[in-house]
């Protein structure tokens, strides 16, 4: 194909968009509504996923050091914990600090114990993969000079299974929504092309090859996808900007979890919306034209 023919196809596709008026409007509306739905949903799911990650990261293993351990064995233990496979980070908290935490939580009465602190020195460890916390804790239990290892047994298993279910449900919902979007959009485009099946027959009778007919339609599908993603991209951006500015400062105080940062995230979502629009537009046109090219 010559360059000028490709240029001709581009001009033809744009001409067709404007001359088809209502058909273009119908397709673009369908694309707009579906992509908006997908965009908002993806935005929510990604943030819920982020929150789940944050919650998981807060899971800690608490290693109580034997009361009899001297300073050398404590340093030794710290090294051993660090060397244990699956441990991400370790922090040491001497028993004095532990008591202070209790005093803060339960009141000054406990200050009496400062003379004779009955608490243990403690290491706080985090697993590289929070889901493996239990296995890592088991390993730490076997080290010398550990008195006890705690990691919220029972509770974190329930937390993890809850979060995992949530993630799977979200994934299934997104896939279902994507599938619906593809079906809806390609169907609308198919209707606009069915209205032009006679045109396709005529083009073939005049001696146009299949690709000569197909390319303008495919380009038209691409334009429909791009036009249809303008409104969703704008709305999703404005929406997230406002939600982020409203919620982010409040969540930061709790420190438990945060929303995804506005800057890279919104571009990713917008890119996804545009890509989906274009791909579905092209795919819808391609499939619909294919049917009528067998004249």
């Amino acid at each position, binding site marked *: 194909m010559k360059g*000028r*023919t490709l240029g*001709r196809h581009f001009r033809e596709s744009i001409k067709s968009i404007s001359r*088809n008026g209502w058909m273009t409007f119908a397709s673009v509306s369908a694309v707009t509504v579906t992509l908006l739905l997908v965009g908002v949903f993806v935005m929510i799911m990604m943030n819920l996923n982020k929150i789940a990650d944050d919650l998981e990261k807060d899971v800690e293993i608490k290693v109580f050091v034997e009361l009899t351990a001297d300073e050398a064995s404590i340093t030794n233990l710290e090294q051993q914990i660090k060397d244990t496979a699956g441990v991400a980070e370790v922090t040491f908290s001497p028993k004095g600090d532990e008591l202070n935490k209790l005093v803060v939580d339960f009141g000054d009465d406990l200050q009496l114990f400062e003379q004779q602190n009955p608490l243990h020195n403690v290491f706080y460890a985090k697993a590289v993969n929070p889901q493996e916390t239990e296995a890592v804790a088991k390993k730490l239990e076997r080290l010398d000079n550990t008195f006890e290892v705690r990691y919220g047994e029972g509770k974190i298993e329930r937390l993890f299974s809850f979060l995992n279910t949530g993630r799977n449900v979200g994934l299934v919902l997104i896939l279902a929504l994507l599938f619906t979007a593809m079906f809806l959009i390609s169907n609308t485009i198919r209707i606009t092309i069915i209205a032009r099946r006679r045109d396709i027959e005529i083009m073939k*009778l*005049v*001696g146009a090859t299949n690709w*000569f007919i197909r390319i303008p339609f495919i380009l038209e599908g691409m334009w429909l996808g791009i036009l249809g993603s303008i409104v969703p991209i704008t709305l999703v951006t404005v929406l997230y900007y406002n939600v982020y500015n409203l919620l982010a400062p409040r969540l930061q105080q709790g420190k438990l979890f945060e929303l995804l940062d506005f800057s890279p995230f919104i571009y990713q979502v917008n890119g996804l919306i545009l890509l989906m629009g274009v791909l579905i537009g092209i795919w819808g046109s391609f499939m619909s034209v294919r049917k009528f090219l067998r004249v």
Partner: protein
Amino acid sequence: MIEMINVYKKYPNGIVAANGIDVKIEQGDFVYVVGPSGAGKTTFIKMMYREERPTSGDILINGINLATLKNSKVPLLRRQIGVVFQDFKLLPRLSVYENVAFALEVIEETPKVIRQKVMDVLELVGLKGKARMFPTELSGGEQQRVSIARSIVNTPKLVIADEPTGNLDPETSWEIMNIFEEINARGTTIIMATHNREIVNTIRHRVIAVEGGLITRDEYGGDYGYEG
């Protein structure tokens, strides 16, 4: 230039539309194809531009055998043949100019040549002033002239017309016939299926009568030959 050898065509529903047709048409001929409805006239025409494929037998056009022509080569055949239809078959969203230009865009002609050839041929059919109008804004006769312009813009050696005056009033039909006469005078072969007795009997040319899937009569300067 056109030769049909023992052509047989049976449709999936069992109807036999061509039952052993042998015919030869020379370059520059003007041929009327006449016959009652459902006699195989349209099939005879359609097989020449490979809208239909013969069940058996050979069809040769300019040395190309249509019976064995691959689907992917059909566009190349159609670029060598101009086809005019009873219902015009214009692209409704394209202007008169664009409809005619389409036949040249298909062969990737340069914009300069396209402009020149399209304007020339629109002048020939008398529609130069309506180049920017759309098919729906034209009368039936004007639409048929656009269709003829499109069929000849590529200067094919053969123009096939399937009842080109079927949807037109008598006066317009004569205008259309004058254009076909002029095209034929330039050396182009014309094959025209028609029901128009008056035209066939007035402008005398070779007449091929098709009945029951067979050629029952083939005479130069013949008349329409059917009553009523």
